[in-house]
């Protein structure tokens, strides 16, 4: 069952230099109970796309067209009031930079209790507190730390607390926006292990953003690779990693060192992503692509099915 279906979503930001087309016709979908990973370089529109799902984009943004179908309803047609009821109850977000995502002058526990009390007004405060304590235990934080302030937590613990908070209302969809950036590698591993365990235990549907491909490979069922505001490849984690079709994905894979393989010089991708103020008419990867053809600069490739459940947006892959 498709839980979330983003269709041809385009978002632009107003700036003094003109409109920045941050997201351009993105198609992504997510089955219930699966984890979708979105990867891509900085500024490719990963965060913008997922923040649009819960309509949390900044005021200078505009969703120019597209649909976000969540459980059969288009979230873009909802009023702000209706969105308030959907946020956290149905779609929760684990933010990046957990240290800033907690109010410094309120106890961690009370901040986890808050969404429960907002969305389930019939829950008594006592019940919400005991639920929060068991949530904290389930992410590996002693319930004695309930009334500690955020500054008394370490970075990893704050991120755990954020995960506990994201699960407080038993949402159908959890969006994790780079949940492990700014944490050291050991803590990253712990947090990812925790997310993996929780997602199996609670059969969570999740969207996870990262620019660390190895993180996504270990965790996700589906992977979408984004480039310059477009999805260039979408498929099961195994397919995308083992048989990347799009030249950009292929080059990305080559840029991950393999600790078991021979020593090779890491081959980066020369050039820069295109200017999103004036996105190219054709394929956005044209300038940097080694397999480019004459039609690539004229027509933007669409995300098409190239093999079973494996989609790519590249003219060269359609043959």
């Amino acid at each position, binding site marked *: 069952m498709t839980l979330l279906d983003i269709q041809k979503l385009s978002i632009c930001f107003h700036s003094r230099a003109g409109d920045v087309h941050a997201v351009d016709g993105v198609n992504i979908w997510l089955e219930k109970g699966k984890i979708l990973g979105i990867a891509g370089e900085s500024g490719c529109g990963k965060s913008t796309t997922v923040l649009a799902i*819960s309509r*949390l984009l900044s*005021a200078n943004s505009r969703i120019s067209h597209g649909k976000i179908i969540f459980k059969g309803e288009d979230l873009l047609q909802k009023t702000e009031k209706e*969105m*308030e*009821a*959907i*946020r*956290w*109850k149905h779609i*929760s*977000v684990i*933010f990046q*930079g957990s240290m*800033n*995502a*907690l*109010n*410094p*002058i*309120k106890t961690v526990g009370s901040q986890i209790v*808050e*969404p429960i009390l*907002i*969305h389930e007004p019939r829950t008594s405060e006592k019940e919400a507190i005991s639920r929060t304590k068991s949530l904290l235990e389930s992410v*590996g*934080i*002693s319930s*004695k*730390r309930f009334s*500690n302030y955020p500054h*008394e937590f*370490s970075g990893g*613990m704050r991120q755990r607390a954020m995960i506990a908070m994201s699960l407080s209302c038993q949402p159908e969809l959890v969006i994790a926006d780079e949940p492990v950036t700014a944490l050291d590698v050991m803590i990253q591993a712990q947090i990812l292990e925790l997310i993996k365990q929780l997602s199996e235990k609670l059969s969570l549907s999740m969207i996870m953003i990262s620019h660390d491909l190895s993180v996504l490979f270990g965790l996700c069922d589906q992977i979408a690779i984004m480039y310059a505001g477009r999805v260039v490849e979408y498929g099961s984690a195994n397919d995308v990693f083992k048989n990347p079709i799009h030249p950009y994905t292929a080059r990305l894979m080559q840029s991950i060192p393999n600790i078991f393989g021979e020593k090779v010089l890491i081959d980066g991708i020369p050039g820069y992503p295109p200017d999103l103020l004036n996105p190219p008419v054709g394929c956005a990867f044209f300038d940097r692509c080694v397999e480019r053809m004459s039609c690539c600069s004229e027509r933007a490739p669409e995300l098409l099915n190239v093999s079973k459940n494996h989609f790519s947006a590249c003219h060269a892959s359609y043959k």
Partner: protein
Amino acid sequence: MNEKNINEKNNTSTSLILGRFKNETWVQQMWADPLGKAGIIILVAVILISIIGPIVFPFDSKAGDSVEGVFRPPSSVHWLGTDDMGRDIFRATLTGAQVSLFVGLTASAISIIVGAIVGLLSGYYFGFGSNLSMRVTDFFFVLPVLPLIIVLASIFGQNIYITILVIGLTSWPSTARIVRSQVLSIREYKFIERIKSLGATDFRIIFAHILPNVMPLIYSNTVLVIAGAILAEATLAFLGLGDPVRVSWGTMLHYAFVSGAAGRQAWWYLLPPGIGIVLVVLSFTLTGHTLDKILNPRLRDY
């Protein structure tokens, strides 16, 4: 070591480091500061006197019955002498303390509430309303407040509640400005975005999350606004725009002035209300500055 043990260990070590700050409330920190201590002592003394004083030494506002009783220097019967109508100045000063403090506190309550709400709303929201409210604030800023208060007081009459309203409604702009500038920076924090994603209403974000973050500013500002409000009341009353029915320190000074107490060298009539005003304003200013020093980490020296 399992996670629980690690957590407990963390807990004890953090509380050791934070112990000095954790166990010291701001009242204790204030007491440690000599100026703050002086401020608290004077303040508590004045408040106690203004509450208990008029009960123990009630003031009879009716004029004395003989000409001999007028402008008497301090004696065993009238500890601070008598005024131009033969009334006891010691008792008048005690009652006046109550009125001055009452006007000061209520007027600054109005001022702080209006200022905080304008500051919070115009800081949180962008757009026309926010800009308009700041231009209104600017308008009140550049307005010469004393002439305005005089005009308003003479239009609306000499009533203590009018005085309170007039002072309260002309002294909020500085609070609004200070609160707004802080809200502008807090609203950009990540945690506000997170709270928005919880599905919280704007009302909740502003009053449950932003307000506690600007509270220290409001506290220290309140104390300074009270001092200003008491001075404003004294000024109005001295100019003869106070409530003629009630005795405040300002009205005492006014009647001392118009009855020519200075010319008759009746120092006992001029000094008590004057010293009272100075002491109260001084105590609020001292506590306000110390509070500011404690609550604003940038003014703290380690």
